[in-house]
């Protein structure tokens, strides 16, 4: 039962975050990259304020899969690493926590593009 509730929470929360993005896109005509950056920075700020982490605990993938969760991971990584390693964590924490995702995106992304056939226009 918990399992089903977690799935529903992920669906509804993730969906609502996408609706916020959609409304921003429709109302402001912002470009994709700008929307992503806005979500990301919002995630970092909300995490620094201590708001986003409880939200992640509650909503699971609904809060981490949207790009705002990437901002959360970066900020949380920086905070955890500062707590653990001191000032060096300022420089290492963010990218360390997100290294797997960024590396996967670069490696899979490059090879997927390499093996693909761009659609004929």
């Amino acid at each position: 039962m918990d399992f089903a509730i977690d799935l529903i929470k992920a669906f509804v929360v993730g969906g609502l975050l996408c609706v916020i993005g959609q409304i921003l896109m429709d109302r402001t005509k912002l470009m994709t990259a700008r929307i992503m950056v806005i979500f990301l920075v919002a995630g970092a700020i909300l995490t620094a304020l201590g708001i986003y982490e409880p939200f992640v605990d509650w909503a699971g993938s609904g809060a981490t899969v949207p790009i705002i969760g990437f901002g959360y991971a970066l900020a949380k990584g920086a905070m955890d690493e500062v707590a653990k390693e001191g000032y060096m964590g300022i420089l290492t924490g963010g990218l360390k926590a997100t290294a797997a995702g960024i590396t996967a995106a670069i490696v899979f992304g490059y090879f997927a593009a390499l093996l693909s056939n761009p659609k004929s226009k």
Partner: protein
Amino acid sequence: MADVSTLKKDYQTVVDKHSPKNEVLKNSFKAFWVGGTICLIGQLITEGFIYIGFSEPDAGTLSTITLILLSTILTALNLYDKIGNYAGAGSIIPITGFANSMVSAAMEYKKEGYIFGMGAKLFTVAGPVIVFGTISSVIVGILYYFL
């Protein structure tokens, strides 16, 4: 010249037919269910990894990587763009949209070469995201260190 008013009326009907009627609501609904479904799939994958014995943080990371892998494959097969045309932000906001932006830009500039074409264009959208993400994390780290 009596036809002018008729023409104007015709023109107005054409305009009405093509102008968006409550597009925001319709687009939001599409974004909601597609984006929600992607997050639900992420949750399922995470639970799956936990079930086979991974720790919760590792399962989360592996789930992200799996979503990225799926997205790059769908993009290479020209399928993710089709989802994107329908779902708008529903396909952009999830992490799969980030991976998609990398592959589709690299695909488009393939003809400009493997290094400056693909290697550089991979970061057309991902570049700003990583730059601002890194800057944010450093600012958060500094604040956390001193406060």
